[in-house]
């Protein structure tokens, strides 16, 4: 709708060239770089033409937030400041996004939970904020170590939720995330999650796009809701009659509004498939034994498959990239040959296994496990042990490890 001239090919104040995002991410030369996940977040944000980043320290995301502060000092970000708390940060992110800014923030564990009220508000207001969630324990006793329990809480907020396995995923998906979440038919916030420390504090070789290329800026006039206007919904929602009145049409409007958010999650499907090359990745799904996982559990699953091959057991792998939109049809298709589906997870509740069980026929095929939580590592051997036990094969206890 907006009468805008393309900025592709022009330069920003830092001399970066606004580049067609598809060309930047698929055709531009890549430079292998040895970085931590947090440093990779910084490098992605450097190329993301972000207007505002708001920070609050909580381990393990603090380093990423601090590094983005350096980007602000270097002039790559329009504004950067620290909020009073995670709740304040997420509220301030909303204000910046209402004002038409491309917004980035980071959080982890209890901070995510403290800010939770804001996430359905972001989605309801159709604000395409990107939030990195570097997962950690949220429950008592306190843990700062990786634990993906907070993802379970994000799944029903109306946000898009993606779960990165590696720092390379992180780099690419931060940039691609804006492309999906800012589509006018989507226009939803994105929680881009990773397992803290395993990704954020581990060095890896990551192929980076040139620093002199960046995404085109956000165009707020493509928003499905009006740009900030204190009188128009969704801003000043409490003045809007449908929440102030008690009648059929008021409730119908509120209900339709909520349905529209989930419709937008559905609409993100085709854009996510386009940018992420599918919502899942698969390997050898013709096998009767499958490991289905997201995040770093995928890496552990891959290694377990290698160990099992040494013992003559063949396994396939499904990597779930997006949790919202949920790849229902893809998982149903990928698991159609499987007699045993193992879902290793870094959390106590097994939310991914529950989602899969609710998706596929004959859900008794799903073995929810192994689970670790509270920051424990998941040695591939325990996945091997879980599979061998289920198959009636002899295995040795690993419980004594580390004692």
């Amino acid at each position, binding site marked *: 709708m907006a009468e805008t001239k393309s900025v592709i090919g022009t330069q920003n104040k830092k001399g970066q060239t606004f580049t067609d995002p598809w060309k930047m991410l698929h055709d531009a030369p890549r430079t292998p770089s040895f970085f931590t996940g947090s440093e990779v977040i910084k490098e992605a944000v450097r190329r993301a033409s972000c207007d505002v980043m708001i920070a609050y320290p909580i381990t393990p995301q603090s380093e990423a937030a601090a590094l983005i502060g350096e980007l602000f000092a270097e002039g790559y970000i329009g504004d950067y400041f620290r909020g009073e708390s995670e709740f304040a940060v997420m509220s301030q992110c909303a204000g910046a996004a209402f004002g038409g800014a491309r917004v980035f923030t980071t959080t982890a564990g209890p901070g995510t939970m403290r800010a939770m009220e804001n996430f359905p508000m972001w989605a309801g207001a159709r604000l395409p904020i990107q939030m990195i969630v570097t997962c950690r324990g949220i429950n008592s006793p306190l843990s700062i170590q990786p634990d993906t329990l907070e993802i379970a809480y994000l799944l029903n907020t109306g946000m898009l939720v993606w779960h990165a396995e590696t720092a390379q995923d992180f780099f690419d998906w931060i940039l691609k995330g804006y492309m999906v979440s800012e589509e006018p038919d989507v226009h939803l916030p994105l929680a881009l999650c990773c397992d803290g420390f395993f990704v954020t504090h581990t060095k890896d070789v990551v192929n980076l796009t040139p620093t002199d290329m960046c995404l085109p800026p956000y165009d707020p006039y493509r928003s499905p809701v009006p740009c900030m206007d204190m*009188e128009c919904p969704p801003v000043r929602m409490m003045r809007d009659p449908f929440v102030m009145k008690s009648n059929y*049409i008021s409730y119908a*409007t509120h209900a339709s509004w909520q349905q529209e958010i989930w419709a937008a999650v559905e609409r993100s499907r085709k854009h996510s498939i386009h940018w992420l090359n599918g919502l899942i990745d698969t390997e050898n799904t013709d096998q009767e034994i499958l490991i289905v996982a997201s995040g770093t559990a995928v890496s552990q699953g891959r290694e377990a498959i290698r160990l099992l091959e040494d013992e003559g057991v063949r396994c396939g792998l499904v990597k779930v990239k997006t949790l919202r939109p949920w790849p229902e049809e893809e998982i149903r298709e990928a698991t159609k040959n499987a007699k045993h589906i193992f879902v290793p997870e870094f959390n106590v509740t097994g939310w991914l296994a529950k989602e899969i069980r609710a998706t596929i026929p004959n859900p008794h095929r799903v073995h929810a496990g192994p689970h670790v939580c509270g920051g424990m590592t998941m040695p591939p051997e325990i996945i091997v042990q879980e599979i061998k036990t289920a198959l009636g094969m002899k295995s040795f206890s690993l419980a004594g490890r580390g004692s």
Partner: protein
Amino acid sequence: MSQYRVLPGPEHFLPPAAASMGVYLPNPGEAHINGVIASEEKAYEEAARQFLMASVPTIFPGPLVLWAWNEKAAKKATAIRHLYNTLKECVQPGQRPMLIPMPDYRPKYPKINPEVEINPNHPNLTIWHNKIDCCMFVGVHCHQANLSLKIIRGGTSCYTIAMCAQAGHEDAMLSFRDASVEKIMTLADWVKKLKGTVKPRLTTKSGATS
């Protein structure tokens, strides 16, 4: 392709969003009719046919065309006026085309006047008051349009058309995408082309359509 069809209502106390029923938006160059992807050409013909069949064919222009906030919006508003005038020229006696603005989405106190204005939160009132049986949304922000279209589908029998400047609307019975001045003018041309070839549904004295 989903088996779900987006049809004139009243469908349900709370109909589902069509996107959640597996209805996909058209790609550039396409449109959808009842949730099924169709060529734009077919959609022009069907939209013109629905307008000419209706007792009260109505255009609901929204703030993105009513407010002359850029040159393109002003040109679109002119094109919509042309479409409306074409519609008036092409209908038969007894048909009553209308142009009802949706200038903004602000709450109106103590209540909106549905005879002269539409509000996305109460679109059914405007449809009921004016006995509208076919309407087109144009220049309405996508989120507000989808709310209205779904409420209309839920509680009225009105046929809805969306002339969307962005990706289109599953919750309309017919939706264009990437709307431009040219597309609005093409629709007007189709209305003119089908003039006299479509039998209108005329309203009886009791308000029911024949």
